[in-house]
């Protein structure tokens, strides 16, 4: 028996042919195909009995009629939905099972999101409670309390805080504690008098730092100096006013060992010393030393390195211009 139809386009007409549903022309076409295609000839021969049974058996016909209404419109919506969700197949493959599984998976995720939202709310809750307390006082406090006093302070006084629920209590926006007595109101928030002063002090300091930060340059200029055992390599002599990154060869140095690096000025002596220098490039065995501009002066310098594998040590002279 041939495994496949030689012309699948005509082959799809097979059941229509078996059920006598083709037009005369299509029937002739399919019968021509049957002589050419052994697969389809086998198929119609083997399926003939089943086809005849379906077409002639009363019980099967009745079953078909009970399974589906003649037209889709006559089938109730719930029936169609149920049929879609709960078809007669392996129960694991039923769409309803898949939907339930999806819901089961989604629910913990929903709970997680909800928990996160609650936590976010709790973080902001003090502010909201203060707002609620203010509103509460704005409405209920009118009966008992007066407006700002004659001195012009915008203050209020909880005369009966014990009688209020906790959410209605006025809290300090700085320390979070309940305000019992006078308070300062600033920019929509309420503070204890003491907290207000502290906050004002912190605010001034923060503002100073902020303006200092804004006015100072955030990127410092850096100049590089590459030294060799014989000659200094570089396009120009480093000058003052910028930090210096010095690269120098450390042939024979061992990785992860501490070295002593000393930078000595011809007049002022040692200006920089690091006894635990480890910044060695493991590929080209060169050290890199960062020297802030504040430590540098014009004149001649000698960079000395001592440590394991370097024998008596290495020295690199260089000069810094004015």
């Amino acid at each position, binding site marked *: 028996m041939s495994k496949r139809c*030689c012309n699948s386009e005509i*082959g*799809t*007409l*097979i*059941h*229509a042919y*078996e*059920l006598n*549903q*083709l*037009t005369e022309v299509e029937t*002739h076409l399919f*019968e*021509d*195909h*049957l*002589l*050419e295609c*052994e697969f389809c*000839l086998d198929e*119609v*021969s083997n*399926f*003939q*009995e*089943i086809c*005849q*049974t*379906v*077409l*002639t*058996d009363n*019980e*099967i*016909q009745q*079953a*078909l*009629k009970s*399974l*589906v*209404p*003649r*037209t*889709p419109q006559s*089938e109730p919506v719930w029936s*169609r939905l149920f*049929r*879609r969700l*709960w*078809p*007669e*197949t392996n129960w694991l493959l039923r769409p309803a099972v898949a939907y339930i599984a999806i819901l089961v998976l989604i629910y913990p995720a929903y709970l997680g999101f909800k928990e996160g939202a609650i936590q976010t709310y709790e973080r902001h809750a003090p502010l909201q409670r203060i707002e609620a307390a203010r509103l509460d006082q704005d409405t209920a406090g009118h009966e008992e309390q007066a407006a700002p006093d004659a001195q012009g302070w915008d203050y209020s006084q909880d005369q009966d805080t014990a009688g209020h629920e906790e959410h209605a209590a006025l809290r300090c926006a700085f320390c979070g504690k309940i305000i019992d007595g006078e308070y300062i109101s600033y920019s929509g928030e309420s503070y204890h008098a003491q907290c207000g002063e502290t906050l004002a002090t912190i605010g001034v300091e923060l503002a100073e730092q902020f303006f200092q930060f804004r006015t100072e340059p955030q990127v410092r200029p850096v100049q590089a100096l590459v030294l060799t055992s014989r000659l200094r390599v570089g396009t120009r002599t480093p000058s003052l006013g910028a930090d210096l990154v010095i690269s120098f060869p450390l042939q024979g140095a061992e990785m992860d060992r501490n070295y002593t690096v000393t930078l000595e000025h011809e007049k002022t002596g040692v200006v920089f010393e690091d006894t635990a220098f480890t910044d060695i490039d493991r590929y080209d065995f060169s050290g890199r030393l960062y020297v802030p501009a504040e430590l540098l002066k014009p004149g001649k310098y000698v960079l000395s390195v001592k440590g394991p594998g370097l024998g008596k040590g290495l020295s690199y002279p260089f000069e810094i211009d004015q």
Partner: protein
Amino acid sequence: MNSLDELFHKAVGGDKAAENDLFRIIHERLLRLAKYKLRGDAYYEDVASEACRTVLQKLRDGAIKSAFSTYASTVLRNTIGNHLQKVKRRNELMEELHGVEDEQTSPTSDPIRRKTIIDCLRKIAGPHPEYARVLRMVVDGYTSEEICLELAIKRNTYYVWLFRARELLKRCLEKGGAL
């Protein structure tokens, strides 16, 4: 080009082996097609043999101008038509002579097979009610035009639905009722 056409052209060219092969293949296929078309008719072999002889004769005469399979199926159709007319005339004659019609035999279904088919149809109708619906309408006696009109589908769609319904039914029956 399929094997029948190849054999046909070789046979026309005088290849005796090809002619023998072609005759053997077309005889077997005409026999099966005749058996299918004349369901339960004991004369299907005679019909197929007659059609085959005609085809071979025309082949030798060089009278086949169309595609070989088209020609052969046309000959078979005509032969079957002639045979059915003879049967009809015979039945009419029998009716005149004896006043009885030939007994119409309807296939009796095996109960197990029937139950399996119903189970399979139920399983197909679940996820694919449209397939079961077209089968139901065919069983109800609707023509393809009426079905396409009522379901508002194209004829090709209708054929594809029938094809898929058949594939599902066949697969289900092969698995003994499991889809």
